[in-house]
């Protein structure tokens, strides 16, 4: 099981890294924001097996907070647009 958790944490970190490439490349701001969402979700995904692997149950709380605050970040980005718009 430990190997699987390690493998999945590393695989998810790779997924985060790929999202990072899109953040750096993505021509429009929307692309970058999308990729930030992926980074956030990948971060949440990483923290879950990591909490079992490193025996830190608190990391699940961190994952929850990260999920919620990533939503706030997306809200901040799109909310600005809503305001600017009408």
């Amino acid at each position, binding site marked *: 099981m430990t190997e699987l958790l390690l*493998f*999945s944490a590393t695989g998810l970190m790779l*997924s985060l890294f*790929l999202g990072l490439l*899109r953040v750096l490349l993505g021509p429009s701001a929307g692309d970058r924001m*999308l990729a930030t969402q992926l980074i956030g979700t990948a971060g949440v995904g990483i923290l879950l*097996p990591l909490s079992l692997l490193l025996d830190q149950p608190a990391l699940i709380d961190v994952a929850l907070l990260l999920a*919620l605050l990533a*939503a706030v970040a*997306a809200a901040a980005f799109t909310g600005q647009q809503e305001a600017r718009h009408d």
Partner: protein
Amino acid sequence: MINFASSILILAGLFFYLAGSIGLLRLPDLYTRLHALTKADNLGLGLLAAGLALHSQHLLTSLKLLLIWLAVLAASATSAHLIARQARRQETRR
């Protein structure tokens, strides 16, 4: 037995995550990339969380995992829509 089911779920979740990220990189424009992203968010995290929930000892942990999945589900669906709508508006304005 539970370990086996749990492992399958975790690996499936990992697969969807990677598929989503590769899609994010390789697909041609924002709307298609969005499609890839939401697969990673919903299925990837959902399967991963399900696999870990099976594995965990405490009910509270499993409930937290469920809450995390639901939060990401709702948030990513909404923000994907908002980001796409805003991008669409910017296009039609030009």
